[in-house]
């Protein structure tokens, strides 16, 4: 068991968080293999977003452990967790609207993260190349000099994904990446995720079952802060408990 544990990229064990006695996440355990694409589904209020908050340090766990590549994340600060290799995309696109697309990506470039480092930071060819290549991946090559505030909702979502990619994280966490997107944007996002998932471990929250089926290696169904079911998409789709609380008859 222990020997096997070492192979997990992320091991969440006995994770509990209680807000004034209400357990949003209750004794939750799950494991992620390297390069795995895991989707978390579940009804509203199941604690899906809270799990991501706990992993990236936005919310502090009451109990339990989150081990990532041998490091215990529950004791680390947010920016240290980022440096350990965890990237998080929020549900509402959060990009820097007053900065251009280029500057948004540049700020996310993993260099010059201290005050002095940021003063000395030089926009060299390595940075420009990295930014341009990411911009190409996220379909924003033509918008590099536009303020991010002028982008469409979908483009902001892509930009935020790009801001994660440029950090070169080992684990990418995406909270409803296609929510609020047009059909065309949704298609392009699926394409983008397929590219990303080739060489990242990805943890996604999503409601669109079609989309989930397309990308997931394994699916974890959450309900009332606990794991209700886990396995392949076909396995959870047939699970009577999942049909009862989430998918419906």
């Amino acid at each position, binding site marked *: 068991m222990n020997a096997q544990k070492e192979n997990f990229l992320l091991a969440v064990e006995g994770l509990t968080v209680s807000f004034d006695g209400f357990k949003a996440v209750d004794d939750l355990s799950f494991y992620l293999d390297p390069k795995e694409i895991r989707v978390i589904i579940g009804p509203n209020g199941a604690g899906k977003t809270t799990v991501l908050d706990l992993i*990236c340090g*936005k919310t502090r766990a009451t109990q339990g452990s989150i081990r990532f590549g041998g490091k215990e994340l529950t004791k680390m*600060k*947010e*920016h240290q967790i*980022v*440096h350990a290799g965890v*990237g*998080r995309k*929020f549900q509402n696109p*959060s*990009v*820097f*609207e*007053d*900065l*251009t697309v*280029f*500057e*948004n990506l*540049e*700020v*996310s470039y*993993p260099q*010059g*993260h*201290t*005050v002095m480092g*940021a*003063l*000395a*930071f030089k*926009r060299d060819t390595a940075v420009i190349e990295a930014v341009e290549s990411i911009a190409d991946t996220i379909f924003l090559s033509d918008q*590099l*000099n536009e303020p991010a505030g002028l982008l469409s909702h979908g483009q902001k979502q892509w930009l*935020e994904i790009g*801001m994660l990619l440029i*950090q070169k994280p080992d684990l990418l966490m995406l909270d409803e990446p296609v929510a609020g997107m047009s059909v065309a944007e949704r298609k392009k996002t699926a394409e983008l995720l397929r590219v990303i998932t080739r060489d990242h471990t990805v943890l996604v929250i999503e409601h669109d079952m079609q989309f989930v089926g397309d990308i997931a290696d394994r699916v974890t169904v959450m309900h009332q802060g606990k794991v209700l079911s886990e396995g392949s998409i076909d396995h959870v789709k047939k699970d009577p408990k999942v049909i009862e609380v989430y998918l419906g008859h």
Partner: protein
Amino acid sequence: MKTNSPLQWLTSREGIYYLLLALLLVVALPLLLDPFRLNMVGKYLTYAFAAVGLVMCWGKAGILSLGQGVFFGLGGYCMAMFLKLEASTPEATKHQSTPGIPDFMDWNQITELPAFWQPFHSFSFTLIAVIAVPVLLALIIGVAMFKRRVGGVYFAIITQAIAAILTILIIGQQGLTGGVNGITDLQTLMGWNIRTDAAKSTLYFVCVGLLFLSLFVCRHVQNAKLGRILVAMRDQETRVRFSGYDVASFKVFVFCLAAGLAGIGGALFTLQVGFMSPSFVGIVPSIEMVVFCALGGRYSLLGGVYGALLVNAAKSGFSESFPELWPYAMGALFIGVVLAFPNGLAGLYERYIMPLEKRLPVIGKYLDKDDDAAPQAPAPASDQLSAEKP
């Protein structure tokens, strides 16, 4: 396409704005004004240091401090303590019961110079203290607040409380600080009489020189990646945090920068005005500094300078004729700025005057070319760009 040589920069749009300000302060005003008025402009410019600091701290990084008077006052008091000690030679104070200590200490039955006054015998220590004392206090406040994620209006209220506390402390400790009268009767700086017209105009030019130095330091910070991170923090603090930055340390840095600038301004104030008192420390002067910054345009460094100059000039003009009306006028001004033109004069300039200047015969074409060239490369957002925030 960053401009590389200084000459290239001076002929760019931004460079021309700096040149115009330099022409105004170095050539036009000294030629037009008598020494008394020029000294007053020098006094206004000391507030510009605080306003420029607020542009960085409030405008760029979104941290509103209602306590810049504290740092201005600390810088001013450091300088005043040095000048007072110089003025309090045993010969000059031989009629006191304890000669050789500042007069107000003698009046308060203090018989020995307090320990914290001792280092201010040294001019080099004083010069360091003018910046270091405000920065140190800002560091303590900043670390205590920002590491605990205190921000926004709570931070503003706490800084205002600190301004009130420091004023009460200074007034209460009359024997150590000169109390409500402050530290007065300052005559010479290293034997040089600072009360003559010649000395006052020299100090004016020193003040202008240091102001430009400060502007260049801020401009450097703003154009570095650090400047973009400050703007990013103002927009989306959480995103900055989850992009791997320790947000608190950036806030502490910019707050300390603003405090250091205010401290320099305070020291220059003491030198040019000849005294320092708690009335430049408390809540009212602190809020006035925010008004200078808001009126000039809180996203624009040069806006901060013009804001300090204009509001102070208006204050002098108004107070000379209707002293009791000035507080109302300033209140109205602040409300007006917030409601009608939140980006201040810099914002107005950009919206109404910049389009007009393009129509000018020669200059218009010249500036036009400059503007066309700019957006081709992802140049760091200039004052003008960020001021366009709706």
